[in-house]
Protein backbone atom coordinates (compact mmCIF):
# COMPACT_ATOMS: atom_id res chain seq x y z
CA UNK A 1 0.00 0.00 0.00
CA UNK A 2 1.19 3.49 -0.80
CA UNK A 3 -1.25 4.99 1.68
CA UNK A 4 -0.50 4.78 5.40
CA UNK A 5 -4.00 3.94 6.62
CA UNK A 6 -4.91 4.52 10.26
CA UNK A 7 -8.45 3.21 10.01
CA UNK A 8 -11.15 2.14 7.62
CA UNK A 9 -14.84 2.62 8.32
CA UNK A 10 -17.87 1.25 6.54
CA UNK A 11 -21.37 2.55 7.15
CA UNK A 12 -24.46 0.81 5.85
CA UNK A 13 -27.87 2.43 6.11
CA UNK A 14 -30.96 0.41 5.31
CA UNK A 15 -34.14 2.47 5.07
CA UNK A 16 -37.42 0.63 5.60
CA UNK A 17 -39.86 3.54 5.96
CA UNK A 18 -40.11 7.14 4.85
CA UNK A 19 -42.95 9.63 5.06
CA UNK A 20 -44.98 7.18 7.11
CA UNK A 21 -44.95 4.53 4.35
CA UNK A 22 -43.18 1.20 4.25
CA UNK A 23 -40.98 1.00 1.15
CA UNK A 24 -41.61 -1.83 -1.34
CA UNK A 25 -38.04 -2.87 -0.81
CA UNK A 26 -35.58 -1.36 1.65
CA UNK A 27 -33.31 1.30 0.20
CA UNK A 28 -29.65 0.74 0.98
CA UNK A 29 -26.62 2.97 0.88
CA UNK A 30 -23.06 2.44 1.99
CA UNK A 31 -20.04 4.61 2.60
CA UNK A 32 -16.48 3.36 2.89
CA UNK A 33 -14.04 5.76 4.52
CA UNK A 34 -10.27 5.72 4.93
CA UNK A 35 -8.31 7.85 7.37
CA UNK A 36 -4.81 8.21 5.93
CA UNK A 37 -1.68 10.13 6.68
CA UNK A 38 -1.18 13.13 4.39
CA UNK A 39 2.40 12.72 3.13
CA UNK A 40 2.47 16.38 2.04
CA UNK A 41 1.06 17.86 5.22
CA UNK A 42 2.80 21.00 6.48
CA UNK A 43 4.71 21.72 3.28
CA UNK A 44 4.13 23.05 -0.21
CA UNK A 45 4.90 20.56 -2.93
CA UNK A 46 4.37 21.31 -6.58
CA UNK A 47 4.29 17.61 -7.35
CA UNK A 48 1.16 15.85 -6.07
CA UNK A 49 1.80 12.49 -7.68
CA UNK A 50 2.05 10.66 -4.34
CA UNK A 51 -1.50 11.68 -3.52
CA UNK A 52 -2.71 10.92 -7.03
CA UNK A 53 -1.37 7.36 -6.67
CA UNK A 54 -2.97 7.01 -3.25
CA UNK A 55 -6.26 8.04 -4.85
CA UNK A 56 -5.95 5.24 -7.36
CA UNK A 57 -5.31 2.71 -4.62
CA UNK A 58 -8.20 3.94 -2.46
CA UNK A 59 -10.59 3.98 -5.42
CA UNK A 60 -10.24 0.23 -5.60
CA UNK A 61 -10.05 -0.54 -1.88
CA UNK A 62 -12.95 1.64 -0.75
CA UNK A 63 -15.17 0.64 -3.67
CA UNK A 64 -14.69 -3.03 -2.75
CA UNK A 65 -15.46 -2.35 0.90
CA UNK A 66 -18.62 -0.41 0.12
CA UNK A 67 -19.83 -2.93 -2.43
CA UNK A 68 -19.24 -5.90 -0.12
CA UNK A 69 -21.20 -4.10 2.58
CA UNK A 70 -24.46 -3.72 0.64
CA UNK A 71 -24.62 -5.86 -2.46
CA UNK A 72 -23.82 -9.33 -3.66
CA UNK A 73 -23.47 -8.09 -7.19
CA UNK A 74 -22.19 -4.85 -8.68
CA UNK A 75 -25.22 -4.73 -10.99
CA UNK A 76 -27.34 -3.78 -7.99
CA UNK A 77 -25.50 -0.48 -7.55
CA UNK A 78 -27.27 2.55 -8.98
CA UNK A 79 -25.59 5.71 -7.72
CA UNK A 80 -22.25 6.89 -6.45
CA UNK A 81 -20.26 9.78 -5.04
CA UNK A 82 -16.93 10.68 -3.43
CA UNK A 83 -15.54 13.18 -0.95
CA UNK A 84 -12.45 14.10 1.05
CA UNK A 85 -11.60 16.18 4.11
CA UNK A 86 -8.06 17.48 4.46
CA UNK A 87 -6.70 18.04 7.93
CA UNK A 88 -5.66 21.54 8.90
CA UNK A 89 -1.99 21.22 7.94
CA UNK A 90 -2.89 20.24 4.39
CA UNK A 91 -4.13 21.99 1.27
CA UNK A 92 -7.48 21.69 -0.45
CA UNK A 93 -5.50 20.72 -3.53
CA UNK A 94 -4.38 17.58 -1.70
CA UNK A 95 -8.01 16.43 -1.58
CA UNK A 96 -8.34 17.22 -5.26
CA UNK A 97 -5.23 15.15 -6.05
CA UNK A 98 -6.70 12.12 -4.32
CA UNK A 99 -10.21 12.45 -5.72
CA UNK A 100 -9.90 13.52 -9.32
CA UNK A 101 -7.06 12.24 -11.49
CA UNK A 102 -7.02 8.49 -10.81
CA UNK A 103 -9.61 7.45 -8.21
CA UNK A 104 -12.53 7.13 -10.62
CA UNK A 105 -11.04 4.41 -12.86
CA UNK A 106 -10.73 1.67 -10.24
CA UNK A 107 -13.97 2.82 -8.52
CA UNK A 108 -15.87 2.30 -11.80
CA UNK A 109 -14.02 -0.95 -12.50
CA UNK A 110 -15.25 -2.43 -9.22
CA UNK A 111 -18.83 -1.43 -10.10
CA UNK A 112 -18.49 -2.81 -13.63
CA UNK A 113 -19.67 0.40 -15.24
CA UNK A 114 -20.15 4.09 -14.54
CA UNK A 115 -20.58 6.48 -17.44
CA UNK A 116 -21.50 9.51 -15.35
CA UNK A 117 -19.20 11.98 -13.67
CA UNK A 118 -18.72 10.93 -10.05
CA UNK A 119 -20.19 13.78 -7.99
CA UNK A 120 -17.74 15.02 -5.37
CA UNK A 121 -17.18 17.40 -2.52
CA UNK A 122 -14.12 18.42 -0.55
CA UNK A 123 -13.19 20.66 2.33
CA UNK A 124 -10.60 21.26 5.00
CA UNK A 125 -11.63 20.49 8.54
CA UNK A 126 -10.78 19.20 11.97
CA UNK A 127 -11.76 16.14 13.99
CA UNK A 128 -15.36 15.01 13.53
CA UNK A 129 -15.89 17.37 10.62
CA UNK A 130 -18.99 16.16 8.75
CA UNK A 131 -19.06 15.95 4.97
CA UNK A 132 -22.01 15.34 2.68
CA UNK A 133 -20.99 12.96 -0.10
CA UNK A 134 -23.08 13.97 -3.11
CA UNK A 135 -24.81 11.11 -4.92
CA UNK A 136 -25.86 10.81 -8.54
CA UNK A 137 -26.85 7.95 -10.86
CA UNK A 138 -23.68 6.23 -12.05
CA UNK A 139 -24.72 5.93 -15.69
CA UNK A 140 -26.68 9.13 -16.32
CA UNK A 141 -26.10 12.24 -14.26
CA UNK A 142 -29.55 13.70 -15.06
CA UNK A 143 -31.57 10.94 -13.39
CA UNK A 144 -33.52 13.09 -10.97
CA UNK A 145 -34.61 10.35 -8.57
CA UNK A 146 -30.99 9.64 -7.65
CA UNK A 147 -29.81 13.14 -6.70
CA UNK A 148 -29.06 12.70 -3.03
CA UNK A 149 -26.30 12.89 -0.43
CA UNK A 150 -24.94 10.86 2.43
CA UNK A 151 -23.40 12.53 5.45
CA UNK A 152 -20.36 10.93 7.04
CA UNK A 153 -17.94 11.93 9.74
CA UNK A 154 -15.26 10.30 11.84
CA UNK A 155 -15.15 11.43 15.49
CA UNK A 156 -11.34 11.29 15.75
CA UNK A 157 -10.35 12.38 12.24
CA UNK A 158 -8.88 14.08 10.36
CA UNK A 159 -6.04 15.03 12.64
CA UNK A 160 -4.03 17.89 11.22
CA UNK A 161 -1.71 15.63 9.20
CA UNK A 162 -4.44 13.34 7.92
CA UNK A 163 -6.96 13.08 5.10
CA UNK A 164 -10.39 11.44 5.28
CA UNK A 165 -11.37 9.90 1.96
CA UNK A 166 -14.90 8.59 1.46
CA UNK A 167 -16.86 6.86 -1.28
CA UNK A 168 -20.61 6.21 -1.21
CA UNK A 169 -22.83 3.94 -3.28
CA UNK A 170 -26.54 3.06 -3.21
CA UNK A 171 -28.82 0.38 -4.58
CA UNK A 172 -31.65 2.84 -5.25
CA UNK A 173 -32.62 6.48 -5.50
CA UNK A 174 -34.37 8.53 -2.83
CA UNK A 175 -36.87 6.44 -0.87
CA UNK A 176 -40.03 8.09 -2.21
CA UNK A 177 -38.75 9.93 -5.31
CA UNK A 178 -41.67 11.56 -7.13
CA UNK A 179 -40.66 14.86 -8.67
CA UNK A 180 -40.39 13.69 -12.28
CA UNK A 181 -37.45 14.30 -14.59
CA UNK A 182 -35.39 11.63 -16.33
CA UNK A 183 -36.12 8.22 -14.81
CA UNK A 184 -33.67 5.34 -14.65
CA UNK A 185 -35.75 3.35 -17.16
CA UNK A 186 -35.07 6.03 -19.77
CA UNK A 187 -31.28 6.01 -19.50
CA UNK A 188 -29.45 5.81 -22.83
CA UNK A 189 -26.17 5.43 -20.96
CA UNK A 190 -23.70 6.66 -23.56
CA UNK A 191 -22.72 10.20 -22.68
CA UNK A 192 -22.99 9.84 -18.90
CA UNK A 193 -25.64 12.51 -18.79
CA UNK A 194 -28.91 10.91 -20.03
Amino acid sequence: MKARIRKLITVVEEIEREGGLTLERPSRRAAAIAVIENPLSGMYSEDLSQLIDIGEELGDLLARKALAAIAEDAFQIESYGKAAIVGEAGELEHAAAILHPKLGGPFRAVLGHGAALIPSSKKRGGLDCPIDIPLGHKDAAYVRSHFDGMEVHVPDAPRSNEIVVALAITDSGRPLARIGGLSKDEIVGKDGLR
Partner: protein
Amino acid sequence: MPDIILRKTIVTIEEIFHEGGPVAAVPLLRGSVCSVIANPFAGRYVEEIAGFMDDLKPLGLMMAKRLVAALGGDPHRIEGYGKGAIVGAAGELEHGALWHVPGGYAMREVLGGAKAIVSSAKKVGGPGTRLDVPVTHINASYVRSHFDAVEVGVTDAPRADELLLALVMTTGPRIHARVGGLKASDIVGEDGLR
Protein backbone atom coordinates in the same frame (compact mmCIF):
# COMPACT_ATOMS: atom_id res chain seq x y z
CA MET B 1 -48.03 -3.96 23.70
CA PRO B 2 -47.55 -2.04 20.42
CA ASP B 3 -45.87 -3.33 17.28
CA ILE B 4 -42.30 -2.41 16.43
CA ILE B 5 -42.33 0.06 13.54
CA LEU B 6 -38.80 0.13 12.14
CA ARG B 7 -37.73 3.07 9.96
CA LYS B 8 -34.06 2.35 9.36
CA THR B 9 -31.03 0.43 10.54
CA ILE B 10 -27.44 1.62 10.27
CA VAL B 11 -24.41 -0.60 10.72
CA THR B 12 -20.98 1.01 11.10
CA ILE B 13 -17.72 -0.92 11.23
CA GLU B 14 -14.41 0.70 12.07
CA GLU B 15 -11.19 -1.18 11.29
CA ILE B 16 -8.30 0.34 13.21
CA PHE B 17 -4.71 -0.36 12.16
CA HIS B 18 -2.77 2.03 14.39
CA GLU B 19 -3.01 5.32 16.22
CA GLY B 20 0.47 6.61 15.69
CA GLY B 21 2.20 3.57 17.19
CA PRO B 22 3.05 0.13 15.82
CA VAL B 23 0.65 -1.21 13.20
CA ALA B 24 -1.37 -4.07 14.71
CA ALA B 25 -0.95 -7.52 13.18
CA VAL B 26 -4.72 -7.94 13.42
CA PRO B 27 -6.71 -4.71 13.15
CA LEU B 28 -9.12 -3.87 15.96
CA LEU B 29 -12.73 -3.84 14.84
CA ARG B 30 -15.31 -1.64 16.52
CA GLY B 31 -18.87 -1.84 15.29
CA SER B 32 -22.26 -0.38 16.02
CA VAL B 33 -25.80 -1.05 14.91
CA CYS B 34 -28.51 1.58 15.33
CA SER B 35 -32.19 0.99 14.66
CA VAL B 36 -34.69 3.81 14.50
CA ILE B 37 -38.20 2.84 15.58
CA ALA B 38 -41.44 4.60 16.43
CA ASN B 39 -41.79 5.42 20.14
CA PRO B 40 -45.25 4.10 21.00
CA PHE B 41 -45.37 6.21 24.18
CA ALA B 42 -44.35 9.55 22.64
CA GLY B 43 -46.36 12.67 23.43
CA ARG B 44 -48.06 11.59 26.65
CA TYR B 45 -47.37 9.98 29.99
CA VAL B 46 -47.99 6.25 29.99
CA GLU B 47 -47.63 4.45 33.31
CA GLU B 48 -47.37 0.88 32.10
CA ILE B 49 -44.54 0.63 29.62
CA ALA B 50 -42.54 -2.39 30.83
CA GLY B 51 -44.32 -4.86 28.54
CA PHE B 52 -42.62 -3.22 25.55
CA MET B 53 -39.32 -4.78 26.64
CA ASP B 54 -40.50 -8.18 25.46
CA ASP B 55 -41.63 -6.71 22.15
CA LEU B 56 -38.13 -5.33 21.61
CA LYS B 57 -36.41 -8.70 21.99
CA PRO B 58 -36.76 -9.84 18.33
CA LEU B 59 -35.46 -6.46 17.16
CA GLY B 60 -32.52 -6.77 19.56
CA LEU B 61 -31.68 -10.22 18.22
CA MET B 62 -31.85 -9.02 14.63
CA MET B 63 -29.53 -6.12 15.48
CA ALA B 64 -27.03 -8.26 17.39
CA LYS B 65 -26.91 -10.85 14.60
CA ARG B 66 -26.43 -8.19 11.98
CA LEU B 67 -23.63 -6.58 13.94
CA VAL B 68 -21.79 -9.86 14.52
CA ALA B 69 -22.15 -10.67 10.81
CA ALA B 70 -20.67 -7.28 9.87
CA LEU B 71 -17.79 -7.90 12.30
CA GLY B 72 -16.85 -11.06 10.44
CA GLY B 73 -19.50 -13.52 11.60
CA ASP B 74 -17.67 -15.27 14.44
CA PRO B 75 -19.26 -14.50 17.83
CA HIS B 76 -16.13 -15.80 19.58
CA ARG B 77 -14.15 -12.85 18.25
CA ILE B 78 -16.26 -10.36 20.19
CA GLU B 79 -14.51 -9.13 23.37
CA GLY B 80 -16.22 -5.89 24.30
CA TYR B 81 -19.79 -4.64 24.24
CA GLY B 82 -22.15 -1.83 25.19
CA LYS B 83 -25.62 -0.52 24.46
CA GLY B 84 -27.38 2.80 24.29
CA ALA B 85 -30.56 4.66 23.45
CA ILE B 86 -31.49 8.14 22.30
CA VAL B 87 -35.10 9.11 22.95
CA GLY B 88 -36.75 11.65 20.63
CA ALA B 89 -37.99 14.93 22.12
CA ALA B 90 -41.60 13.81 22.62
CA GLY B 91 -40.49 10.89 24.79
CA GLU B 92 -39.11 10.33 28.27
CA LEU B 93 -35.68 9.16 29.37
CA GLU B 94 -37.49 6.20 30.92
CA HIS B 95 -38.43 5.01 27.43
CA GLY B 96 -34.72 4.62 26.71
CA ALA B 97 -34.41 2.44 29.80
CA LEU B 98 -36.69 -0.07 28.09
CA TRP B 99 -33.64 -1.08 26.05
CA HIS B 100 -31.66 -2.45 29.03
CA VAL B 101 -33.24 -5.87 29.14
CA PRO B 102 -33.79 -6.66 25.44
CA GLY B 103 -30.47 -5.11 24.33
CA GLY B 104 -28.48 -7.08 26.89
CA TYR B 105 -30.48 -10.26 26.31
CA ALA B 106 -29.87 -10.07 22.57
CA MET B 107 -26.11 -9.73 22.87
CA ARG B 108 -25.77 -12.49 25.47
CA GLU B 109 -27.91 -14.76 23.31
CA VAL B 110 -25.84 -14.14 20.20
CA LEU B 111 -22.46 -14.19 21.96
CA GLY B 112 -23.25 -17.32 23.91
CA GLY B 113 -23.47 -16.23 27.53
CA ALA B 114 -21.28 -13.23 28.24
CA LYS B 115 -20.89 -12.65 32.01
CA ALA B 116 -20.27 -8.95 32.54
CA ILE B 117 -22.95 -6.32 32.90
CA VAL B 118 -23.47 -4.52 29.59
CA SER B 119 -22.37 -0.94 30.07
CA SER B 120 -24.83 1.61 28.75
CA ALA B 121 -25.70 5.24 28.15
CA LYS B 122 -28.91 7.00 27.26
CA LYS B 123 -30.22 10.50 26.66
CA VAL B 124 -33.05 12.50 25.13
CA GLY B 125 -32.03 14.18 21.90
CA GLY B 126 -32.97 15.37 18.44
CA PRO B 127 -31.93 14.29 14.95
CA GLY B 128 -28.14 14.00 14.69
CA THR B 129 -27.59 13.78 18.44
CA ARG B 130 -24.50 11.71 19.19
CA LEU B 131 -24.21 9.25 22.05
CA ASP B 132 -20.96 7.82 23.39
CA VAL B 133 -21.77 4.21 24.15
CA PRO B 134 -19.39 2.88 26.80
CA VAL B 135 -17.65 -0.41 26.11
CA THR B 136 -16.35 -2.98 28.60
CA HIS B 137 -15.08 -6.55 28.37
CA ILE B 138 -17.90 -9.07 27.88
CA ASN B 139 -16.79 -11.37 30.71
CA ALA B 140 -15.06 -9.14 33.27
CA SER B 141 -15.96 -5.47 33.69
CA TYR B 142 -12.59 -4.57 35.25
CA VAL B 143 -10.43 -5.46 32.25
CA ARG B 144 -8.71 -2.13 31.76
CA SER B 145 -7.53 -2.62 28.18
CA HIS B 146 -11.10 -2.97 26.95
CA PHE B 147 -12.57 0.21 28.47
CA ASP B 148 -13.56 2.22 25.43
CA ALA B 149 -16.52 4.00 23.88
CA VAL B 150 -18.07 4.03 20.45
CA GLU B 151 -19.87 7.15 19.33
CA VAL B 152 -23.17 6.54 17.55
CA GLY B 153 -25.76 8.79 15.98
CA VAL B 154 -27.93 9.13 12.91
CA THR B 155 -28.19 12.37 10.97
CA ASP B 156 -32.00 12.33 10.64
CA ALA B 157 -32.95 10.54 13.86
CA PRO B 158 -34.45 10.36 16.35
CA ARG B 159 -37.37 12.48 15.31
CA ALA B 160 -39.54 13.61 18.22
CA ASP B 161 -41.69 10.47 18.16
CA GLU B 162 -38.86 7.99 17.64
CA LEU B 163 -36.38 5.92 19.61
CA LEU B 164 -32.85 5.26 18.42
CA LEU B 165 -31.57 1.98 19.88
CA ALA B 166 -27.91 1.00 19.65
CA LEU B 167 -25.65 -1.97 20.29
CA VAL B 168 -21.87 -1.82 20.00
CA MET B 169 -19.20 -4.51 19.97
CA THR B 170 -15.41 -4.60 19.69
CA THR B 171 -12.97 -7.39 18.89
CA GLY B 172 -10.20 -6.50 21.29
CA PRO B 173 -8.39 -4.00 23.48
CA ARG B 174 -7.72 -0.35 22.54
CA ILE B 175 -5.25 -0.38 19.70
CA HIS B 176 -2.25 0.71 21.80
CA ALA B 177 -3.57 -0.26 25.28
CA ARG B 178 -0.73 0.04 27.79
CA VAL B 179 -1.97 1.41 31.11
CA GLY B 180 -1.91 -1.82 33.08
CA GLY B 181 -4.74 -3.13 35.27
CA LEU B 182 -6.56 -6.43 34.94
CA LYS B 183 -5.62 -8.18 31.71
CA ALA B 184 -8.01 -10.19 29.58
CA SER B 185 -5.66 -13.16 30.02
CA ASP B 186 -6.10 -12.99 33.82
CA ILE B 187 -9.89 -13.10 33.90
CA VAL B 188 -11.34 -15.52 36.46
CA GLY B 189 -14.72 -15.25 34.76
CA GLU B 190 -17.09 -16.07 37.58
CA ASP B 191 -18.61 -12.87 38.85
CA GLY B 192 -18.58 -10.81 35.65
CA LEU B 193 -16.23 -8.33 37.27
CA ARG B 194 -12.75 -9.93 37.31
